[in-house]
Structures are given as C-alpha cells and as structure tokens.
C-alpha cells in the first residue's frame, strides 16, 4: 500500500496524537488507517462498537450495510442510537452519528439486505470486512464472498452470554491464507436446534466487548501491528468470566478453498441453512391400518408411484402411476374417498402427495409409512423384497 499521498490536517494530527505517539504504531500506522476501507456488515449490537471505534480511530473509508430501522428493543445494546433515532434507517442514523464523531472520514451506506446478488459488488471495493450480522445465512454469505474476493473477514458472534471472535481468510506476510468460517463450522445448525432456535437474547454489554475486540482486530489487520486472531478462535463466557483461545486450521474438505473446491459462486444461503426445507406435514397411514382397511372392505383407492419395473418385481395390486406422471394423471385420482399412495420406502409417495395437494387441492391423500417394504415386513413377509 502506498502511503505517500496520505496527509493529515492540523486537526487530524491533534485528534490522532495518542495513536501517533505509540511506539511501533506511529505515523505509519495512522496513515494506513486513513488509507484503508472497511466494510461493516450490520450496524447493530456488534456493529455499534465496531463503527464507533473505527470511526474514532480514523479509518479513512467506512461502509455500512444495514437495511433495518432502529427499534426500541435495540437500544439496550446498540449504542450508536438513541431514542431520537427510533424508526430511522440504522445505516443513515449511524452515518450521522459517526460523521459527528469524526468529520475527517468518508462513510458510505448501503440500506439494503446483503444478498448473493449484491454481496460481491458491495464488498469488492473494501480492504477488510467486519461481520456483525445476527444470522447464519448472512454469516456464510459474508464468509464465502470474502474468500472469493480474497478479503480478510474479521468475525465476532454473540449469543446470550457467549461470545466468539476470529480473523478469517487472512493472508500473512508470507502469503499464506488462514482458515475461514467454513473450516470452523462446515455446516450451520439445523433450524430448531440450539443455538438457532427461536429463543435468543443477548446480554447488552456482551456485543460491546466482542465488538471492541473486533474493532481491535480490524485495526491490527490494517496496520500489521501485533498478531491477529487468524488461525485462532477466541471465546468469552460472560457468566464464568472465562476466556479461551483455541487453535484452528484450514480443512482439506473446505468447499471454497480446500483440496477439491465445489463452491465457485455464491449460493442460496437460506436453503443452505435449511430454512426452506420446512415442509407441511402430510397425512400418513401405517401398514397395519392399511391392511385393516383392506380386510374390512373399506372403500379407498391405492396408488403406487414407483416405476413399472419395480411394480413387476412386487406389487400389492395398486394402480400404477409413476411419480413423474402423477400430475398428468391427477384426474384418475379419487376425490370422494380416501386415497393411499405408496412407493418403495415412502419418499417418492410423499413428493407425489405434496404435488397433488399443492397443485390440485387434494385433501384425502395418505402416505403409506415405510412404503411397500414396510408393508412386506409387517403384513406380507412372503412377498419379494428388493
């Protein structure tokens, strides 16, 4: 980075005096800060201290990505904002606050959600990214975009009383790149499991502590002073007041930059985090109940959605309508009585039922639990299994 064009006014020199006089930081460190561009994703609990300290410290260009507006429930921890800003866009309110804190810096705001469509475009103009988001899809999005663009990603995360921080995708002086978020957490928690369950909450001071650590690491990444948290994971337990720092390393299985990368472009991160797989439950019937219906003469229709060659191997006298043809044969499916749909194990018949319910409004369909194999096991062990 050439620092020759970086100059300071008299006011700036007075302002940054306590930096400039630190041995090992000095004028050069301050010039590096002024020349740098940092993107802060999220201006909430973590973003507030990150932005306040980076602006105060004299980072020359700060970008803020936040689509949200200030809410009463934010003020317990988001110290950038006061009651006067409730209802305002966070990015706009943050810019006003930071500009009054330090008029010598440039602040760019992006009042939009960071998405797979815009992330590369927004991040590419910055030197360092600080991830202060509050959900898994955006964490993976920020991580992947940073790896693709070769940008260091200064990470901090909080939940209730627990905090974590690291520096991801950091290239050291030898050009060696450190681990990223996917090396540490290859996949996110499935929805419903802690800590992605609906019960959340965070102690107000905790993002203040972790966000300050994040700001510190951003400054170290920019200035090259000290050793960053690259290759290490810092964790803080606010309840027991214990801190630990673990060693982390790159994984050969990382789909972004491991031995056999499979992710070449940004993906659908909500889907990746399992948020689109919540499917409406469908009605089911057990093999035993089906058998009862058969022997008691219950009036129902039985449909098999397997392929003809499977039907040839073994069948239970159902009408054969392979899954691929189910919609075009919807008129053959009864609406005035119960209909049991089966396949080999229950997966394809569930798909068929969803398709028929969604596209044709059926409400009388039952999936045979365990498919024909389950039926053979429980009712007709003499039939052929395959």
């Amino acid at each position, binding site marked *: 980075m050439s620092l020759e064009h970086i100059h300071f006014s008299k006011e700036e020199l007075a302002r940054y005096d306590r930096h400039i006089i630190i041995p090992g930081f000095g004028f050069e460190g301050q010039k590096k800060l002024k020349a740098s561009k940092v993107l802060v994703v999220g201006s909430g609990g973590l973003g507030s201290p990150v932005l306040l300290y980076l602006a105060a410290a004299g980072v020359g260009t700060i970008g803020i990505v936040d689509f949200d507006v200030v809410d009463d429930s934010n003020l317990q921890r988001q110290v950038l904002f006061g009651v006067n800003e409730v209802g305002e866009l966070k990015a706009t309110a943050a810019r006003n606050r930071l500009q009054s804190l330090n008029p010598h810096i440039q602040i760019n705001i992006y009042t939009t959600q960071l998405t797979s469509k815009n992330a590369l475009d927004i991040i590419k103009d910055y030197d360092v990214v600080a991830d202060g988001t509050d959900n898994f*899809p955006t964490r993976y999005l920020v991580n992947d975009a940073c790896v693709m663009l070769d940008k260091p990603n200064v990470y901090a995360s909080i939940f209730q009383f627990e905090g974590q921080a690291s520096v991801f995708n950091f290239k050291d002086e030898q050009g060696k790149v450190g681990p990223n978020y996917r090396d540490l957490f290859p996949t996110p928690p499935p929805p419903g499991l802690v*800590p992605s369950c609906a019960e959340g909450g965070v102690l107000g001071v905790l993002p203040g502590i972790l966000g300050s650590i994040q700001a510190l690491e951003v400054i170290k990444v920019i200035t090259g002073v000290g050793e960053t948290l690259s290759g290490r994971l810092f*964790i803080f337990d*606010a309840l027991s007041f214990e801190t630990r720092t673990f060693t982390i390393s790159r994984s050969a299985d990382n789909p972004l930059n491991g031995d056999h990368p499979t992710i070449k472009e940004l993906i659908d991160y909500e889907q990746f985090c399992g948020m689109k797989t919540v499917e409406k439950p469908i009605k089911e019937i057990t093999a035993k109940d089906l058998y009862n219906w058969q022997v008691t003469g219950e009036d129902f229709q039985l449909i098999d959605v397997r392929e003809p060659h499977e039907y040839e191997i073994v069948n239970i006298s159902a009408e054969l309508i392979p899954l691929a043809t189910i919609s075009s044969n919807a008129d053959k499916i009864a609406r005035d009585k119960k209909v049991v749909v089966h396949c080999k194990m229950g997966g394809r018949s569930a798909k068929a039922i969803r398709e028929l319910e969604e596209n044709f409004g059926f409400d009388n369909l039952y999936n045979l639990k365990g498919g024909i194999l389950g039926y053979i096991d429980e009712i007709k062990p003499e039939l052929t299994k395959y």
Partner: protein
Amino acid sequence: MATVIIPTPLRKFTGNTARLNTTAANVQGVVNELAQSFPELKKQLLDEAGRIRAFVNIFVGNDDIRNLQQENTVVKEDSIVSIVPAIAGGAPEISTI
C-alpha cells in the same frame, strides 16, 4: 479427572452445570458419557447417525480434535475438553437475508 466445559448455550441441558468431570479415555467416551447423562444434550451434539454434528467443535486443550485423532483423540487426566457450537447472534427469530 479430565474436565469438560459446557458452553453457555448448552447449559440448560446440563442443569446449568458449566464444568463436568470425566474419566473417559477419549473424546468419543466423553460424548457418550454426556449423551447418557443428559439425553436432551445428545440431540444437540450428535446427528441421527450418532456422529458429532458439524456445527459443534470439540477442542482438547487448545486443539481442534479434527486436527488430532477426531473422536479417538486421547483425553488425559489433566485434559480440558471444550465444546464450542456455532452461534450467530441474539435475534429472537431467524432473520433472513
């Protein structure tokens, strides 16, 4: 005896116990002990196939067991075993991007 540190988000499954003692000889043994003592915790730590979930990191001392011998990593008398799950923030509901 070795010590297991339960992270704050998982303490509700251990009756708010932060530290447990273990006599298990390796990480698999530690996980089995935890799963047996705290059935609700088991679901958090292990998937349906009984493997340690990918969003749960286990460290023995300062080292990730992925860089040691995975579940077979030896736990010594003075070892400290830490469980570190992924956390993303305190939003009451999962926000979408």
